[in-house]
């Protein structure tokens, strides 16, 4: 039995008077590649914010690496990659190298300067995402998919054990989505990174993931990918309405 990296028990959350998440319980084990599926407004982003400690649950308990999230201090173990579209100012004057290096900020802590050997770390991180030839390019001149790879490298440079990605393929050309997932699968298998990925379209769930969680304010299903494949489209319709369909 691998140890759970994340445990949620009866977690609920609401914004003012709107219930967003109700009684969420699930766990993620080391080495899992979990896709959280849900339509727009199902509470996916809120769930991630809870996991990142940006918002606090109304009730219930969240544990990260076996420790209550309130006393969890090793935030550098969790790498985060947000949705590309609203993440950053694309006219920002920075090179790929500078962006990736900035991923060390939290790990180093306040008042510490970026070490001289950081260049090697930057190169390693960029190699893991296949972007090592773009070190000195301006970040704004890259395509959406390339930028997203750079942001994964920025998360990887701090050597996280867990990667959390919020709809990472939004804004990426359709033909590049497949190779993007291939890269994530390699990170999961070869570097043993546990990955949690949020997406609102079941179509993007490919055969690379190990687990699926279906979210629409509450968890309707959580389990292995192969068990998810046996769920009928009718049932998915019940959970999500007509906005979600499954392709085999």
């Amino acid at each position: 039995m691998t140890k759970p990296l994340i445990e949620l028990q009866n977690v609920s959350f609401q914004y003012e008077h709107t219930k967003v998440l109700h009684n969420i319980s699930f766990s993620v084990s080391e080495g899992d590649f979990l896709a959280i599926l849900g339509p727009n407004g199902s509470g996916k982003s809120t769930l991630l914010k809870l996991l990142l400690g940006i918002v606090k649950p109304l009730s219930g308990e969240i544990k990260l690496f076996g420790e209550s999230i309130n006393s969890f201090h090793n935030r550098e173990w969790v790498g985060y990659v947000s949705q590309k579209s609203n993440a950053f100012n694309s006219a920002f004057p920075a090179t790929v190298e500078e962006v990736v290096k900035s991923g060390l900020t939290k790990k180093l802590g306040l008042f510490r300067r970026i070490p001289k050997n950081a260049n090697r770390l930057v190169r390693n991180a960029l190699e893991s995402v296949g972007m090592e030839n773009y070190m000195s390019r301006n970040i704004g001149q890259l395509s959406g998919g390339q930028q997203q790879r750079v942001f994964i490298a920025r998360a990887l440079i701090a050597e996280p054990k867990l990667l959390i990605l919020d709809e990472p393929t939004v804004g990426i050309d359709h033909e590049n989505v497949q190779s993007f997932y291939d890269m994530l699968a390699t990170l999961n298998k070869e570097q043993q990174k546990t990955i949690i990925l949020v997406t609102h379209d079941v179509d993007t769930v490919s055969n690379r993931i190990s687990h699926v969680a279906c979210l629409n304010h509450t968890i309707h299903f959580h389990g292995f990918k192969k068990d998810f494949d046996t769920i009928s489209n009718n049932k998915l319709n019940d959970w999500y309405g007509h906005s979600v369909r499954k392709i085999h």
Partner: protein
Amino acid sequence: MIEALLNYPLIQNAFLSGLIIGIIAPLLGVFIVVRRMSLIADALSHVTLAGIAGSLYLSQSVASLALLNPIYLGIVASVGGSILIERLRSLYKHYEELAIPIIMSAGIGLSAIFISLASGFSTDLMSYLFGSVSVVSRQDLIVISIIALVVFVFLFLFFKEMFVLSFDEEFAKATGLPSKWIHLLFIIVVALVIAASMRIVGILLVSSLITLPVATAMRISKGFKETILYSIIFGESAVIIGLISAFYLNLVPGGTIVITSIIILFFVILVKKLVLSLRVGRR
């Protein structure tokens, strides 16, 4: 010119202050511009004016304050204004930019009252509005040097945090950086630099020394550190050329420095266009 520099301490003060400001204004300016806060700099400079005008009025009406250097109340007003802007920005969450006109009009309103109380415009006030080559005191130079030191210490300690915060605020929050505190410190440092810069370029033109060199640098640089380096080079050139021409042509340095910055900006835009069209032509 060199003779004047050697023999007149006031001109020495102005030049040394100018050289310092030519570094710190564009250095901080890079962060201000990329964080889209240029207008905040403008609002703060007008609040600084209220402090200066208030101080000039006090030194006229209260005998014991006759020798008070207006830069101190200017700094107090600027820093106070910066904290107030932050409070207002969190109050108007969805209309953050409203904080700027509110603070700006408060600054100008107070300035107008103090100026009329002090019975109108004096040459002293003019020098604060547009800068001066000949009235910068040793005390001003010392205050400006201390502010420069504060800027360097701030960036030495928080450079990497400021980069993350400027580039991607969401990522900063997700990694658990103390964004709020760093931002508050930053805006206070900005307020200090504005108060320091007005002695040379004048209150009405402070924000141009913060933004124009950065606007120029961003046309040609690829990276962040490169942008900082170019901004300082352009800022420093504008200050040196501006101060020398102000001295010889007997003009206010605020005007000459800003117009030099504008000329450099257009020159860089033009050269870049030429280089690009030459490259296309060669293909």
